[in-house]
């Protein structure tokens, strides 16, 4: 017995030893990075009072206001720091493992593509991208965000293709006062007035932004009298289906059966079987990635494909669309991006993207590209000055430019206002493509049907 207790004494001692050693080890490596990163501890002081100063401005950072605040910053800071020391560090948070890998890869490629396009320099400062794998899991995203901010000392974060991670990180960015630009992650709450944050903007849609117009369009333009909804049973799935239903019924349509398969499900037989093709004209679908492949396959297998017109949010592009092939024929989508959008810059984007990755550009790569473009332009507008991150954040809000996917501007909650493209999947040669059948201009988070 004596041996036992003695043992545990020493053991605990050893344990403590190991940990404190390890801690010390980390400490060294970290303290270096600290010294090389003066702006990491420093901003903490000036920033905390800061939000109060930009606060009066940010309520209306509409085009007149913020430019002069920006100008202000430039004039005052220009003499002291013409070009700031060290690179501009941008943290990229996207899943490169887990269920959302495919989206993360495309988004990252889009982001890289943009920065390669500008030789990784903004107003003379080098841009350093720090990639972090969220695995689509908010918890891991949070851990990685802490690394990006506390250890890497990034000046801004971009990415986040899935809502769950986006929500967690939006909150994190707000608390830690780091500018964040979300690409694709669509949780509506992030940019609703009640919990919008000055630090967070979104170049992509909020849940409902595509569906509200789509509901109206399906009823009035596609002439669907009754519709079913088939949406993954998670927050943004339900948000989107609800938004569709609202405008669809408002326009005189009627919602029949509402199916809610579990997220990432691969077996849709039970839910397809619950549809009644006879009394259903079209069906709103929010089933993405792996799910959509299985889903459209099974729609065909069950012989429902021809009977019901599938309509959906613009998620079926690029890789997925190729995989789906003819099973997706007739799918009508409303989205902020389609490769078929006819513009010189889009053509260039598509060409460069396939040159870089060897695959077709889609909504995820496009949104990633846009997020990159937005942060670069925002910092560029400040002459590359990132000493005051709150100014960077508000600079994002004041952006308004013509992108490869059309015009983009932000509302006071940081939500992008952009055109929506209504597309239909049609056959072309051996494969299928999206063809633009309509455009709805300047769609923001809230949208009211014409007339």
């Amino acid at each position: 017995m004596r041996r036992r207790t003695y043992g545990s004494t020493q053991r605990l001692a050893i344990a403590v030893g190991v940990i404190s050693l390890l801690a010390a080890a980390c400490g060294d490596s970290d303290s270096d990075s600290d010294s090389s990163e003066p702006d990491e501890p420093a901003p903490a002081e000036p920033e905390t009072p800061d939000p109060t100063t930009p606060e009066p401005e940010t309520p209306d950072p509409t085009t007149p206001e913020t430019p002069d605040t920006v100008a202000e910053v430039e004039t005052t800071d220009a003499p002291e720091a013409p070009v700031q020391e060290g690179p501009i560090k941008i943290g990229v948070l996207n899943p490169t493992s887990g269920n959302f890998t495919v989206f993360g890869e495309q988004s990252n490629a889009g982001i890289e593509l943009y920065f390669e396009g500008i030789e990784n320099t903004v107003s003379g400062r080098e841009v350093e991208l720090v990639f972090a794998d969220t695995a689509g899991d908010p918890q891991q995203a949070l851990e990685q965000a802490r690394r990006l901010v506390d250890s890497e000392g990034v000046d801004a974060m971009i990415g986040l293709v899935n809502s769950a991670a986006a929500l967690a990180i939006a909150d994190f960015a707000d608390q830690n006062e780091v500018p964040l630009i979300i690409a694709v992650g669509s949780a509506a709450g992030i940019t609703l007035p009640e919990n919008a944050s000055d630090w967070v903007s979104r170049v992509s849609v909020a849940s409902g932004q595509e569906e509200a117009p789509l509901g109206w369009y399906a009823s009035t333009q596609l002439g669907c009298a009754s519709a079913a909804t088939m949406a993954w049973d998670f927050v943004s799935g339900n948000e989107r289906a609800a938004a569709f239903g609202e405008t669809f019924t408002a326009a005189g349509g009627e919602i029949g059966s509402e199916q809610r398969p579990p997220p990432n499900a691969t077996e849709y037989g039970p839910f397809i079987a619950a549809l009644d093709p006879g009394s259903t004209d079209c069906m709103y679908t929010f089933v993405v990635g792996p799910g959509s492949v299985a889903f459209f396959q099974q729609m065909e297998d069950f012989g429902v494909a021809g009977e019901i017109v599938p309509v959906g949010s613009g998620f079926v592009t690029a890789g997925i669309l190729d995989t789906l092939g003819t099973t997706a024929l007739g799918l009508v989508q409303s989205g902020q991006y389609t490769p078929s959008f006819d513009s010189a810059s889009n053509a260039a984007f598509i060409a460069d993207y396939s040159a870089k990755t060897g695959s077709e550009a889609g909504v995820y790569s496009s949104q990633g590209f846009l997020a990159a473009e937005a942060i670069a332009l925002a910092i560029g507008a400040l002459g590359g000055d990132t000493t005051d991150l709150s100014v960077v954040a508000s600079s994002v809000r004041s952006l308004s430019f013509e992108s490869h996917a059309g015009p983009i501007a932000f509302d006071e909650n940081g939500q992008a206002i952009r055109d929506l493209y209504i597309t239909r999947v049609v056959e072309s040669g051996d494969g299928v493509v999206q063809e633009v059948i309509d455009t709805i201009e300047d769609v923001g988070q809230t949208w009211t049907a014409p007339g």
Partner: protein
Amino acid sequence: MRFWTFQVLNGLTSGAILFFVTVGLTVVTGLMRVLNLAHGALFLVGGYAGLATIEATDSFVAGLAVGALVSGLLGFAIRQAFATALLGHTFHQVLLTLGISFMLGNGILQVFGGTPRRLLAPSYLSGSVDIFGVTYPRYRLMLVVLSMVAGLALWLFWERSSIGAMVRACVDDRPMAAAMGIPVERVFSVVFALGAALAGLTGVMAAPVKGLHIGLDFEVLLLAVIVMVVGGMGSLTGAFIASMLVGMIDVMGQVKFPELSSLTLFAPVILILIVRPQGLLGRPLA
């Protein structure tokens, strides 16, 4: 009515797939008392191997063969490499096989990328047929029938053949079997490899229904574990009944009580384990 006909057929379909996945797992577990958490990964490896083959050769059958072969060999390798550890402590097995499945899963991601893949049923099995007043995919019906046939065949092999007898002897009482001069070690290796091969084969068979994507391995694994426990480790008949049962519960649960689907799926397992630790038709665990 139409609705229920559909759902029953769907239940049978997922039951059929479950049966094919679980057979391998349950025999290995019952025989070696090894909970092989890499079973799901072997399923996925087989699936992707089959996919690659089919894309190359355009022959579904070749795909099935390669899928089974690759996973089988992999299983054999695993068994040989970790023979001792696999017979060690329960939690050693768990961690070892879990580690292996992480490696395989990530390996697939590296080789095939994250894009979900779709595997078409062979032309002669695609399309759908009218049955019981509903239009149902031919391929799925084939799976259901196949599972019945395979189940019967396996059962005969299990009950009648001398090899089957050997395996059963090992399941019942390992030392006794050894004493009777049965080459227990070899039986283990063979069964382990066969179980893996079956998983791989199923990976290909299920692909036209479930598709292929990263993360499918763990979904399948968990279902297989449930079926195994409910059916009773090492019991073929049990596995068959349990597959169909779980398949039905899963389908009905998802459609009728989506928010409770985890409960409808796992609660029965807990109940059965508590009331009848050895499962419907099996011997006590551990």
